[in-house]
């Protein structure tokens, strides 16, 4: 299960966006709802390689307890890793990437 109790303490690498409203739902961009959105992105795009439990999968490593900063996570998501991981820059914009990062931080 996802440790939802940890969401309240989650921060993102885009703190400047917190408190702003999304275009569609006018929902405030709190760390909590960023992570909720990020969770759905994770299952959509990451889980089939990194595992449904994020603990390693098809040919990608575990994302549990990542020891890198949120900014580094965002950079990897946006840029990819040559021959290892695709870039998601065309799929997830900055805010969506921040959501994914927020979710990954809950996995610590």
């Amino acid at each position, binding site marked *: 299960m996802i440790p939802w109790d940890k969401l309240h303490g989650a921060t993102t690498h885009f703190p400047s966006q917190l408190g702003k409203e999304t275009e569609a739902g006018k929902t405030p961009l709190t760390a909590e709802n960023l992570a909720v959105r990020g969770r759905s992105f994770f299952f959509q795009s990451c889980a089939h390689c990194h595992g449904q439990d994020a603990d390693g999968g098809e040919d990608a490593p575990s994302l549990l307890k990542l020891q890198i900063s949120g900014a580094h996570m965002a950079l990897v998501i946006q840029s990819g890793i040559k021959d290892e991981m*695709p870039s998601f820059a065309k799929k997830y914009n900055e805010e969506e990437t921040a959501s994914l990062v927020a979710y990954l931080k809950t996995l610590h």
Partner: protein
Amino acid sequence: MSDFIESNTNNDGVDRRGFLKCMAWAGTGVIWSINGGLLTSTVLGEEANNRSAIGTAELNFVQISDSHIGFNKPANTDVVGTFRETIVRINTLPKVPEFLLHTGDLTHLSDPAQFDALDQLLKECKTKDVFYVPGEHDIYDNGAQFRARFGKNTAGAGWYSFDQKGVHFVGLVNVANIQEGGLGTLGQEQLDWLEKDVKGLSASTPIVLFAHIPLWAVYPKWGWGTDDAERALSFVKRFGSVTVLNGHIHQVMQKVEGNITFHTARGTAFPLPAPGSVPKPLPVVVEATELKKMLGLTSVNYTETNHTLAVVDSTLG
């Protein structure tokens, strides 16, 4: 819809464990032939057993899947080589197939260079027409590359239909919105389109649905199924002959349920384990020599209606 074999219900001596073990390996592609409106399948490498049916068929086409161009892990460090070998097998069929169906995961990382490599490889194939549906590995860029190359004249996320010699083919996309648990999803818009697409067809029209993730619950625990597939299948139940072709699970499984035959194809890249045989569906690593030997070794046909399990073994070498 029933899911998978929980126990042996007949006296064929093959229990679920045995079935799963046997079906783990199969050919690199499947050739489909239509004779008198009936679809029959032959695993590539076994076509000598079915030469006459292929030769006299009204329509032959080959299903290939999961080429994962760009994959470079120990399970297969030469996915280009195994894909090329598949093309050689297609080229040496007794009759050139009219077209190929690629049921997704063309590439491993949606990289333009990987799509280019696939294009180049397919130029070696005598069959020039190829119809595609994307796998989840083809849309990391939100499907931009895939749609630009293969999505012309498609609707929504890339679904479409076409007719060939009286058979109605429908390419569906069930990887665009994968949910927690990994199950594929078709979505309301696509379901509405499908209902409309087949509505005016005569019930005697043979139907072929193809998509990446299986449209039947092969093993939901690993996401090997499609959440809203039953609705899609409800639109085609009135047809006398429906064939559902999928990839994703990198192994051959076949099930017949009423007038609907479900078939998953072996990938050309690397093997995945039999459902439930290990905790996670990780690529299976075998010795390089074994990998080649195992391709095309075993095909399994499970007919749910009469509980018969047929296992056919053949070697490539």
